[in-house]
């Protein structure tokens, strides 16, 4: 059972107000409990939580490089296994470290099937370096390296389906979550760390600075993403869909309009064909994961 009163991520860190990843760090450790070793990649969370000589982490924590957390975690796990130690091993890495630069190390770790839980805090761009596009950036989002302009509608590529890539590795548990639903995050973390083998959790962590919304709206934005179907919370075991969060879906417009990264889709006037493409992505998600609540439900 998750001990919600457990506070293992200390206050006083340097995250922005309303930081989604900071919320996840706190929730994640409630899900893991104290008997854990955390492996971090370079990124926002590493920087805002561990400026030497201060740390927000009340559990053992290690950071090596940007791309190698899954390999470092493999090494930690091998050492623990050799010495019959009980700590759970959890990676916490951003989407750039996960979808892009860390793919090699992640693939190796999941192929080898280490007993680790890899958690990606997905804020959909390289936020630590100033909002550059990553493989997790959604279609048409304007970032500093995929800016909207006279000849650009922002990021022209779809978001990479990282969970499916890890399913293809035979991961025992793959799930998505959102900080907008804290109980769900904690439960899924608890389930992942207690499932043998390599598990992957991808958590939507809205970023007020990078996405362009007020820091008080993080949870609201997170919920809107789910309600429109652009983010789906689901669970898979050995590649099979076991559960997904059902919603009474609303059009994507409201979610998009609430964020500056999609502002170019509405000003000076709505770009209906682009908004329709994004709506099609949400519709495809809904069909794939069966999230629409039917009339008779």
């Amino acid at each position, binding site marked *: 059972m998750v001990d919600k009163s457990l506070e293992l991520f200390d206050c006083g860190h340097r995250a922005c107000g309303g930081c989604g990843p900071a919320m996840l760090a706190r929730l994640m450790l409630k899900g893991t409990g104290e008997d*854990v070793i955390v492996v971090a990649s370079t990124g926002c969370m590493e920087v805002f939580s561990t400026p030497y000589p201060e740390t927000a982490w009340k559990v053992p924590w290690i*950071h*090596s*490089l940007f791309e190698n957390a899954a390999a470092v975690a493999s090494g930690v796990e091998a050492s623990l296994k*050799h010495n019959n130690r009980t700590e759970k091993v959890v990676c916490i890495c951003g989407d750039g470290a996960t979808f892009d630069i860390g793919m*090699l190390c992640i693939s190796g770790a999941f192929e080898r099937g280490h007993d680790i839980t890899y958690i990606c805090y997905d804020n959909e761009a390289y936020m630590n370096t100033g909002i550059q596009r990553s493989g997790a950036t959604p279609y048409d989002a304007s970032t500093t390296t995929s800016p909207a302009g006279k000849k650009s509608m922002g990021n022209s590529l779809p978001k990479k389906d990282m969970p499916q890539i890890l399913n293809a590795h035979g991961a025992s548990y793959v799930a998505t979550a959102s900080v907008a639903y804290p109980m769900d995050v904690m439960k899924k973390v608890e389930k992942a760390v207690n499932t043998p083998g390599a598990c992957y959790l991808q958590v939507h962590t809205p970023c007020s600075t990078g996405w362009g919304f007020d820091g008080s709206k993080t949870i609201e934005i997170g919920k809107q993403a789910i309600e429109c179907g652009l983010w789906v919370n689901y669970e898979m075991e050995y590649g099979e869909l076991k559960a997904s969060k059902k919603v009474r879906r609303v059009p994507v417009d409201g979610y998009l309009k609430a964020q500056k990264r999609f502002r170019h889709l509405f000003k000076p006037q709505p770009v209906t064909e682009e908004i329709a493409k994004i709506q099609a992505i949400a519709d495809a998600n809904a069909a794939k994961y069966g999230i629409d609540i039917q009339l008779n439900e």
Partner: protein
Amino acid sequence: MLQIMEGSHAVAEAAKLCRPEVVSAYPITPQTHIVERLAEMVADGELDAEYLCVDSELSALSVCIGSSAAGSRVYSATSSQGLMLMAEVVFNVAGMRQPIVMSIANRALGAPLSIWNDQQDSISLRDAGWFHLYGEDVQEMTDQHFIAYKAAEQHDVLLPGFVCFDGFILSHTYEPVDIPSQEEIDAFLPPYVPYNKLDAKAPISMGMYATPDYYMEFRYETDQALQRAGDAISAAGKEFGEMFGRDYSGHTESYRMDDADVAFVALGSICGTVKDAIDEMRADGIKAGLVKIRTFRPFPAAELAKALAGVPKVAVLEKNISLGSAMKGAVGPEVKDALTGTAIEVYSYVIGLGGRDIRKKDIRAIAALAEKGVGNMFYGLRTEVL
């Protein structure tokens, strides 16, 4: 008892005797025979270790960081391109003060692709914060593994170390070698006691980031520790000598340096050829000598200055090229710096790159060039293909 053994297999035996808890490596020629033999040892139950077949050298050394930080003694081995792929991790290991020992079967770097020997790979990472040991023969490179772990794990050192030996020339050569027993190595190298480790009962943060207020002090302390590693290597080498009769207390080794008119400075297997050439030159009345560098990092400047004192000319044999530099080789400028304030002339000679053979007559020719004051050059170029 002496056994005839391939160099790579002797290194694998040495690694096994050090009782690593985790072995993590990625295959690359000419390192492969080491990791293949270790895999056999694990498969046959001779070595109780977690053996990780990883996806790349980047992962190989990253795994080592994790295991070492969790408190395990770890081992890896690589070469050439593999060392370059893991270069970012190499620097990281030293900064994180993990006492990892890694064997380097020295090999040239591409392009053009070459699987053959020179020392460009490890020399190129001389500034990474690892200590560097170079072996001349199979016995020496085998023994250096025991010394490396012992020195690395001292709590006033806590730095990683390379044990370097020439690919193919040593890794694939069969030589008589004395492999100590497990009991003997256990007596020399006690179990690893981490200074600190990842442990849920006593949480610490490792690998935090440093602002400009702290970064320079971290680098200073790492340099200080690397200087202390020199003393630890020397002490371990002396203790090893007392136990096994092979003394490695010196970072350098002098050969026929009395009254020498020209001294060679070299690292690795070439020293054997140089010694033979010196014997012939001495027989012909040419007074040549050799100072072999066994520890390249920390650089043994004082020891080298003492060994070379009074020699008019020094010829540094370089199996590397510092492209675009004035002396061409990377070792020469450091030797020259060690001799600052003396009238000794120091010249670099780039030889044997990418596996080009080095013969005794080449050594004699280089001695003649040094005598004439001609150096800081490639030696042995095939001008007809330029």
